[in-house]
């Protein structure tokens, strides 16, 4: 980026809410169905059909507001945004303008900088256009039409692509952690529009902004911002003028293009939807929803670092997915050793997670803690503890039963260990001699041999102790 320019960025982020049904009708909110099969008179805009607001969509929007520290309006109003486009079955989108559900709020970046939100409002998604070819034309599938969306509009507080991506990550984490939205960008479950302008460093005069659409991954947000910043600076440097326009990002080409727009396109003739009366949001409901919210990433980070004294590295891994953090928190309720638990999760559990599929922890938190308790009680050797985790992941079931089934329990007597060691010492005179020169290395050899002889049941510490006795 050029040092002599400031870049001013505001983001409009849309996320599809995690509901069973659409926002104004009882059709399934489901991705990937056959075309036009999740539809009814309301969402395909048949004459006479009327919208009925989904309670859960309102509640999830309130929750989103609570996560981002917004003020929740007492009365929310839905408005019609009128324009003709074939993905919009009624020629208007039901959205919110004057009285959205959530006002203000914001997200704090790691640097401490606060990115203010202007609002979060609830609206309906449009259908999907499939552009085929000249003979088939453009096809319209209304399955997505009417899926509940929240739009989170930031103030123009963002000043770099990195900040934009961090802000997006934090928004997404909050929504995912609180069960509000799944934010699957690859399915269009989260989308981002970027408003961007540049100005000479220190200047108070704002530049003309452009709006970029079609940003479907964090990486394309990053690239599109970098591209558009340079484009605008180069344009201004060359004596040109930035035009206020909507641009479409082409991820393959790594460029954005001006979208042709009709002059009247911005006259949306918003007015309150007469089919939907005001929504009264009771304080009791807000309090109830607040109580339901899980701990959000920021809060968990604080607890992990300060109360559990975990290193940053561990905390980053634990918080990288809600599922890991939830697993860790649940396991802690059975086994209150944060650092030990974190180590086991990071080294012995996460390696089994299949990254190509939907993220899912491979075993139950309670079973992991059962393994750790057995290990602590010396009922399992470390090797067998690891092996038991693997078996739990492969077969599921109860830790204790599996340990018995595979004969992993450390039920060998001290005498038997001692006897086994004696025999190994007898059988390896050279090692016995080497031990005197290099005790550390050779003790590992003996421990390994004993473990093999005892099928992993011997306690390595006990073996070392016995080695001392016999060889020193």
């Amino acid at each position, binding site marked *: 980026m050029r040092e002599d320019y400031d870049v001013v960025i505001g983001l409009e982020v849309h996320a599809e809410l995690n*509901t*069973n*049904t659409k926002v104004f*009708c*009882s*059709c*399934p909110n489901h991705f990937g169905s*056959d*075309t*036009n*099969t*999740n*539809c*009814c*008179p309301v*969402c*395909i805009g048949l004459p006479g059909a009327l919208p*009925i*607001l*989904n*309670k*859960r*969509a*309102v509640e999830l929007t309130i929750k989103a507001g609570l996560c981002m520290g917004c003020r929740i309006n007492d*009365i929310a109003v839905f408005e019609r945004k*009128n324009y*003709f486009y*074939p993905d919009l079955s009624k*020629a208007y989108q039901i959205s919110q303008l004057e009285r959205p559900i959530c006002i203000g709020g914001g997200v704090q970046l790691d640097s401490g900088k606060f990115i203010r939100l202007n609002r979060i409002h609830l609206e309906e998604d449009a259908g999907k*256009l*499939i*552009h*085929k*070819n*000249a003979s*088939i*034309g*453009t*096809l*319209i*599938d*209304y399955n997505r039409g009417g899926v509940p969306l929240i739009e989170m509009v930031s103030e123009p507080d963002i000043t770099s692509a990195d900040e934009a991506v961090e802000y997006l990550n934090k928004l997404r984490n909050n929504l995912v952690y609180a069960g509000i939205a799944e934010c699957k960008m690859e399915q269009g479950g989260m989308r981002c529009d970027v408003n961007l302008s540049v100005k000479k460093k220190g200047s108070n005069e704002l530049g003309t902004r452009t709006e970029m659409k079609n940003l479907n991954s964090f990486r394309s947000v990053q690239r599109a911002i970098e591209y558009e910043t340079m484009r605008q600076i180069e344009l201004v440097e060359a004596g040109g003028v930035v035009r206020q326009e909507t641009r*479409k990002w082409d991820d393959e080409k790594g460029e954005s293009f001006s*979208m042709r727009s*009709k*002059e*009247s396109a911005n*006259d949306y*003739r918003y007015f309150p939807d007469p089919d*939907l*009366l*005001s*929504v*009264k949001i009771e304080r009791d409901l807000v309090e109830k929803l607040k109580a339901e919210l899980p701990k959000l990433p920021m809060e968990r980070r604080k607890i992990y670092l300060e109360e559990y004294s975990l290193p940053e590295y561990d905390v980053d891994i634990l918080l990288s997915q809600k599922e890991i953090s939830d697993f860790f928190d649940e396991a802690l309720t059975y086994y209150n050793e944060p650092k030990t638990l974190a180590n086991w999760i990071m080294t012995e559990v996460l390696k089994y997670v299949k990254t190509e599929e939907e993220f899912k922890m491979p075993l139950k938190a309670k079973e992991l803690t059962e393994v750790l308790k057995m290990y602590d009680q010396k009922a399992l050797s470390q090797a067998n503890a690891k092996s038991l985790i693997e078996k739990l992941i492969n077969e599921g079931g109860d830790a204790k039963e599996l340990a018995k089934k595979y004969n992993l329990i450390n039920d060998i007597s001290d005498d038997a260990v001692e006897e086994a060691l004696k025999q190994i010492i007898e059988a390896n005179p050279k090692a016995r001699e080497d031990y005197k020169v290099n005790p550390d290395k050779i003790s590992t050899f003996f421990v390994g041999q004993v473990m093999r002889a005892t099928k992993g049941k011997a306690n390595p510490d006990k073996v070392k102790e016995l080695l001392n006795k016999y060889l020193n």
Partner: protein
Amino acid sequence: MATKIDIDHLANLSALELTDEQKAKFEKEFEGIMELVEKISQANVSDEIEYDPIDVSELREDEVKQGLTQEEVLTNAPDKKQGCFAVPLMME
């Protein structure tokens, strides 16, 4: 208050294609209609649009109900292809 009406802009917003003759006719009729509707400027009301507590939406539970089949959805479609409504290829 004499309001000048931009007929072309309105036709555009309305997605209507009007002949010059129709435009002229609308323009003339609008004069009379505007005279009628502009009577509301006489009204002496200053307060905000009041929120009437009776006028509150009933919210719906988030439960799936049977909708239409694909065939029913497309019953009246002037053009349909591959289970979808069809329009000429759009240039975006």
